[in-house]
């Protein structure tokens, strides 16, 4: 399964990159994606997540070719 993963703002700085192409088996949920890309880092409690540009929870399912994004609380306006 191929997943495009995006990181924004301070999380991108922490993770050390802005995007990732995840190509792995055994990926069912957004939480699985996080585990696969975060090198063991616990999921921050205020982390925001989106699949194909819609907000979701960590237990949302992902499928092949989805775009999954992780980012910190937003600070626009």
């Amino acid at each position: 399964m191929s997943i495009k993963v995006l990181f924004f703002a301070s999380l991108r700085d922490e993770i050390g990159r802005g995007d990732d192409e995840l190509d792995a088996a055994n990926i069912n949920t957004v939480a699985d994606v996080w585990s696969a890309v975060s090198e063991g880092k616990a999921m921050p409690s205020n982390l925001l997540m989106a699949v194909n540009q819609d907000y979701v929870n960590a237990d949302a399912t992902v499928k092949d070719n989805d775009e999954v994004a992780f980012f910190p609380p937003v600070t626009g306006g």
Partner: protein
Amino acid sequence: MPKVVLFEGAFEPYRELMAFEAGLVQQHGAGQYGATTSFVGTMRDFNEGDDVSAMFLEHYAGMTEKALEKICEQAMADYPILDCLILHRVGEIKPNDSIVLVAAWSAHRGAAFDAARMLIETLKTDAPFWKKETLKDGARWVEKNTDG
């Protein structure tokens, strides 16, 4: 029809508002709204006690526009408003630059105020934008917005 625009350079919020309003009158005819509430956010040169000389406004191209459009749809569903508008700056900005405009048009002032307030509060919690401030000795990500 609600409109959402992201600006990569400086924009003049009230000129944009006037242009949108002219279209509104053309679309609906004159005399259809009695109340317009607008909010403009402007970059200050201070935050959390520090001087801020510039700011970078990051966004998630695609999702940001989608999130703003959803906020407009929600406002149109929740309040008796004729129309609404959201404009937001992205990229490098300087003190006194306009960051955001939200506006709502209604027959009566209560709905216009409530909808404009909802637009900016929801934008502040839901729209994927992140501010990075340039200080004298480095840069920092703004961690959370001030309370409304």
